[in-house]
């Protein structure tokens, strides 16, 4: 290896190591703090913890399902459209990510809340959502869907659309083309976007608090339970213990999701 290549490689590794350490050290810190100060075992044994964890898993999975079901068509249409309107919509997709989550919660209330401009309509058809578990899902969907749609859009846009044309000329139906030509090509993008989307939904705090409230068993997800613990006398020790439970749980799920999408993907 030439000196130049060696220097370049060292630089590459150094840059990667700096970021990796920056991301890993706080996580290691919170685990260490929980093991020394906190009481992870007690939290794991408490039914309140499991209640919050269960609510978190159910709501974030529902949010992910909605994002995939509704977001895939949206991303596909945007990526295939040549109209200027589609380009504007695509750039607006990231806006929910820019909003501080608390503001996102207020924004949801201004539309779907009781005093929101759709509030009376929703109330009239018996769909008042604020302070319900449905509101938790909607808050998570609002902040996490852009992650999925953005990734799916990148997948569809980077694919050569002529391949679909070729499939049509060979007599494949639209659905068959999508399933056997398009989907296998964009699968990694969809899977990556889904993981990001789910992780963001699982960690959602601010929008959920404002839009759905915080009631144990109904709307108090794990992040909200951590916030409640932090504000309590148990304070930091209780909050870090619960955080480590959430982290450990998310870690297991993320590893499982990665393996699932990498090996059990239907098109590998």
């Amino acid at each position: 290896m030439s000196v130049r290549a060696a220097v370049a490689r060292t630089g590459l590794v150094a840059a990667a190591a700096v970021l990796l350490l920056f991301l890993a050290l706080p996580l290691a810190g919170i685990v260490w703090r929980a093991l020394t100060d906190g009481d992870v075992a007690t939290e794991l044994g408490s039914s309140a913890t499991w209640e919050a964890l269960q609510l978190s898993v159910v709501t974030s999975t529902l949010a992910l399902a909605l994002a995939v079901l509704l977001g895939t068509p949206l991303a596909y249409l945007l990526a295939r459209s040549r109209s200027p309107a589609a380009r504007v919509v695509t750039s607006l997709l990231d806006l929910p990510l820019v909003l501080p989550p608390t503001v996102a919660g207020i924004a949801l209330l201004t539309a779907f809340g009781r005093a929101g401009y759709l509030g009376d309509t929703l109330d009239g058809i018996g769909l008042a959502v604020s302070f319900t578990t449905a509101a938790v899902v909607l808050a998570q969907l609002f902040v996490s869907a852009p992650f999925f749609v953005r990734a799916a859009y990148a997948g569809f846009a980077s694919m050569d659309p002529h391949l679909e044309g070729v499939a049509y000329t060979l007599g494949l139906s639209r659905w068959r083309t999508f399933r056997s030509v398009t989907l296998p090509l964009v699968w990694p993008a969809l899977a990556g976007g889904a993981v990001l989307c789910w992780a963001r939904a699982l960690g959602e705090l601010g929008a959920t608090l404002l839009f759905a409230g915080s009631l144990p068993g109904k709307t108090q997800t794990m992040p909200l339970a951590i916030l409640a613990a932090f504000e309590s006398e148990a304070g930091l020790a209780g909050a870090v213990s619960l955080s480590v439970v959430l982290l450990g749980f998310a870690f297991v799920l993320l590893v499982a999701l990665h393996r699932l999408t990498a090996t059990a993907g239907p098109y590998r």
Partner: protein
Amino acid sequence: MLLDRPGVLRRAAATLVLAATLLVGASACGDDDDIEIAAASSMRHVLPRIVEEFLRAHPDLDLSFELRFNGSQVLATQIAEGASADLFISANAVQAERLVDEGMASLATVVTANRLVLAVREESPWYSLSDLADGGARIAVGSPSVPVGRLTVIALSQLDRQLARELLAGVVTEDPSVRVVLSRLELEEADAAFVYHSDVAVTHGLRALPLPPTVPPNEYVAVLLEDAKPGTEEFLAFLLTPEAQDLFRAAGFLRAVAGVRAP
């Protein structure tokens, strides 16, 4: 020459801009001589007025203040983790006293107190607790883990049992701070909220339904932190003077009754 290469010039310019940004950022962080007060969010409106009054009363002292407001738990955690502060005014006596127990602070002093009320919007049709219970109102409360929520539990336990049960059935959220509880009324998502009297005093369009007078007030405890700057102790003493107590009262707080707490 080295400087002939445009990349070098551009990088130098970028470095200069970065350095300037850092310098401006550092200097914006306030004077090192400022007396730093970390205070509970509910003090946001009244404390600047008290500081002003203190400076007017002591023209001889050359002091300046930096006020920081947040939830008491957040502030206590920041201080315990090494954030600098000279005086900490906590809405949660337990947290302030924990700092004293750990040897990080001294002179725990009750400086004021706040009464729990059930707030409703001015135009709402409710004038008593039983009106609310009958009307199926949506009620926001603080989480039992925070002082306002703990007081709410006490208040409900002192009501008629049937009434308390009906009110509890209307609870839609247990919020992590009194600020969030109050926002439920402001955003019109809830019909009533258990908050402090001082919150109603500074928020437009709200009125308070009375609760049993036996519900204890929430005390605000100030502690002097280790190595507090000169003048901090004088300010702490000033908080108990009639001038400061009048300002507290005008802002909806109660007069301090207990004074210095036994260590």
